[in-house]
C-alpha cells in the first residue's frame, strides 16, 4: 500500500493525522527534528494499525539536505502533508532579526524548498497530493503576530500558485487554514472554547477535505466567516483596533 509523508510529525494534529491515515490503510513516513522522540508513538501506531510507520530525520531549516532526504525515500509517497509551524514570539522578533528570520524561514521559506522537490516528483508521475497547513493568521497582518502572519500569508500564496501549476497534471494541492486548536502550540493560551477544536477533530476535517479534493478549507467553518468579517474591516479602522 502507498505511503503518506507527514512533515512536522511531532505536532498533535500530525499525530492525529497519522492515526487517521494509518486507519485508512496507508503506510507512513514521519519526518521531524529529533525524530527519535516519536519512536514510542510510531511503534504504538504500527502495532495498532498493522501498517509501516517509518521515521526520518528532517531539519527543515537545512534546505541543502532536502533533495537527498526526499530522494532516499523508497517508495516515494503519494501524498505529502506539511504541519511545520513555529509560532515564535512577536515581541522578541521586533528586536531580534534572527528570531524574525527563524519564524519566516520555518513557516514559509524552508517549506517551499521541500515542497517543490516533492511537487516535481508528483508532477512527473501525474499523481499525488500536497496538503499545506497554513493559518488564518495569514489572512490579515495584526500587531500581535505579524511575522508569523506574514510567513503564513506567503505560504498560502505559494500553495495557491503551486495548485495552479500542478492542476493540469492531476496533482491536488490543499491549503488548510486552521483557527484555534487545542494543541501543544497553544496550551498556554486562553482560547474561547466555542472557536476552538481538538487536534483529533481538526485532523479528521483535514482528511475529509483532502479526500474530497478541496482547494482551500478553514478548520473549522466559523473561521471562514470570521476572517471574511476581519478582512472587510477598512484599514483606517483596522489600524486602530487591538486584535
Amino acid at each position, binding site marked *: 500500500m502507498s505511503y503518506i509523508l507527514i512533515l512536522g510529525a511531532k505536532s498533535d494534529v500530525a499525530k492525529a493525522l497519522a492515526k487517521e491515515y494509518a486507519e485508512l490503510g496507508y503506510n507512513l513516513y514521519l519526518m521531524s527534528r529529533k525524530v527519535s522522540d516519536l519512536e*514510542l*508513538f510510531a*511503534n*504504538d501506531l504500527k*502495532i495498532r494499525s498493522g501498517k509501516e510507520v517509518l521515521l526520518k530525520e528532517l531539519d527543515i531549516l537545512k534546505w541543502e539536505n532536502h533533495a537527498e532526504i526526499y530522494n532516499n525515500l523508497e517508495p516515494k509517497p503519494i501524498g505529502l502533508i506539511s504541519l511545520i509551524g513555529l509560532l515564535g514570539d512577536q515581541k522578541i522578533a521586533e528586536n531580534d532579526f534572527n528570531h524574525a528570520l527563524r519564524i519566516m524561514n520555518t513557516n514559509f521559506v524552508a517549506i517551499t524548498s521541500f515542497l517543490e522537490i516533492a511537487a516535481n516528483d508528483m508532477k512527473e508521475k501525474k499523481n499525488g497530493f500536497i496538503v499545506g497547513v497554513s493559518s488564518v493568521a495569514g489572512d490579515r497582518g495584526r500587531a500581535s503576530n505579524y511575522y508569523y502572519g506574514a510567513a503564513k500569508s506567503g505560504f498560502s500564496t505559494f500553495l495557491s500558485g503551486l495548485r495552479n501549476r500542478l492542476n493540469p497534471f492531476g496533482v491536488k494541492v490543499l491549503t488548510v487554514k486552521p483557527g484555534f486548536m487545542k494543541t501543544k502550540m497553544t496550551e498556554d493560551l486562553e482560547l474561547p472554547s*466555542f472557536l476552538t477544536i481538538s487536534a483529533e477533530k481538526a485532523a479528521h476535517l483535514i482528511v475529509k477535505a483532502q479526500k474530497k479534493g478541496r482547494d482551500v478549507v478553514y478548520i473549522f*467553518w466559523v473561521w471562514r466567516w470570521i476572517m471574511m468579517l476581519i478582512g472587510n474591516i477598512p484599514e483606517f479602522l483596522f489600524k486602530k483596533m487591538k486584535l
Partner: protein
Amino acid sequence: MIIYLAFALLSTLFNLSLQYLWVSIYNGRYELESAILIGTLGGFVLKYLLDKFFVFKRSEKKVDIKELFFYGFTSFFTTIIFWGVEWFFHFAYESEYSMYLGGFIGLSIGYILKFYLDKNFVFNVSSRNLNSWGNYPKIDNSSIEPVSKSSLKDIIGDHVKYIPYGNGRSYGDSALSKNIIKSSELNKFIGFDPDSGLLEAQAGVLLSDIIKIFVSKGWFLKISPGTSYITLGGAIAADVHGKNHHIDGCFSSCLESFTLMLANGDVKECSRLENKELFYATCGGMGLTGVIINVKIYLKKINSKWITQNLVSCKNLKELFAAFKTHQNVTYSVAWIDCLAKGSSIGRSILMLGEFGEDGDLNYKPKRRLNVPFFLPSFCLNYITIKAFNTLYYFIKRGKKSSFKVSIDDFFYPLDAIRNWNRLYGKNGFLQYQFILPEKVSYEGLLKILTIIAKKKKGSFLAVLKLYGEENENYLSFPIKGYSLALDFKIERGIFELLDHLDQIVVELGGRIYLAKDARMSRETFERTYHKLSNFRRIRQEIDVSNKFESLQSKRLGL
C-alpha cells in the same frame, strides 16, 4: 442562568417581531396560524443556537438531530406546564390579571425546569470531577494526565498526594482522591512477540484495545474481567479475575513484570524474581505503591472468535452448587442468580459455561454499542422492575437451547454493549457488594445472605455467583478458594445498614469483600479479613509512599 433568561426574553422578542413582520407582508386566510408557526419556529431555532453555543458552550458546529429533538421535547414539555398553569389560574380566579399572573408563574417554572433539563439531559454539561463507576461517593477533584515518564516524574515531585486512575471502572472509592493522576495518555503499545505471546504496553492501554488488535491475529487475554474498558494498570492494581479464575487464577498470573514509579520518582522493575515483595504488594494494591508505567503480559492463543456456550438452569442453590461441581473443568463459568427468589427457589439461577471454539474463524470486529445518554431517575429501579426483570430473564434463558455459539463480546462483556449503563441507577449512584466465602461454608453462608436480601426486597439486576480457585501470594488480592457473589444496590435508605449486617456474616464465615467494588466497609471488617495486610503495610512503609499515594479508600481502611 441570568444569561439563559435573557436569551429566553430575546427569543420571545424575536418570535413576536417575526410574527409582526410576517403579518405586515402577508394578508391571507391563514394569517394568524402561519404567523404563529413562523414566529415559534424562528424563536425556537434562535434560542437553540444561543443556548447551545453561549449558555452550554458547545463547540461542535453540527446541529445534532438527537440533541435538537431532545431540546424540542423539553420545550414542548415545559410549554405544557406553562399553558397548564395559565389555564388553571384563568379558571380558578376568573379575572384577567390572574391569567397573566398564572402565565408568568407558569413560564417561570417552565423556564427554570427547562434550564435544568437542558443542562443535564440535552447538552449534558457535567462537572469536570472524575467519578468512580458506582458514582458514589463523589468528591471534588482535579486530575492531571502525564504524557511521558518524565512528566510523570515532575508531577509526582509536587507536594501533593495522588492516586492513579485508569478508566474509572472500579465501583467504589479506590481511585478517588483530591488529586488524581490519570493514565489515559500513557497508552502506547511497545512490542509483541508472536512466538511467546508476550505483549509489552504502557499501563494506560485498555483491554478493549488489546482485544480489538489481537483477536484477529489469534490472541486473547489470558485473564479478563467482565468489562474490557479497564486499563492494564487498573487490572494489576485490583488484581482482577474472570470467569476462569477456578482454573487460571487472577490477572497477575498472566503478568510477567511491570515497571513502577515510586514516590521519589525512582522506577523499579518488579516481577516474581526482582523486587518480588513490591510485586506482591502492587498486584491487588489498589495503586497505593506507586504508578505502574510499563506492563508485560502473556496473551493466550485462540483458534476462533466464537465461544461455545452451554446454559444450565438450576431451580435453587443446591442444584447450582452441584452444577458448579459437575462442570468444574470447564474453562469459563459464571452463574447469574435471581436474588429475589424466595423459599424453595432461593438461588434460582442460570449457570453459563463456555470454551473457545476451534473453527479458525478470527474475523473479529468490535460490536456496536448502545448508550444510556443520561442518568435515569433513580426510582426507575425498584423492587417491582427488578423482580420482573429477574423472573423474565430466568424464563427466557431457561427456554434457550443449551449449547450454541456466541461472540467474545456477548460472552465476556455483555454489559459493555451498553455505554454508561451505570446511569440506570440514577445520579445518586449505586454500590456493588462483592464478597467471597471459603468453599466449606459457602452454601450455608449464601443461603443465609440470599434469604436476608430477598426478605428485605433489596434486589439487583445482576447478581453473579462464581466458583474460585486457590488464593495467590499477593497481599491484597481478593480471591480465596470458594464462592463469591456480586450484587448491585442503588443508594437508598437502609442500604448501608443492610450491608453492615451482611459484612458481619461474611466476617464470621471467614470471607472477605472485594476492594475494587468497595466504598463503605469498615476498617475493622477489612483488618479482620485480609490476613496478609501487615505485609502490605510494611512495604508501604519501607518504600515510604504513604505521604504520596492515598485514596478515599486507603484513608478509610488505613491502608
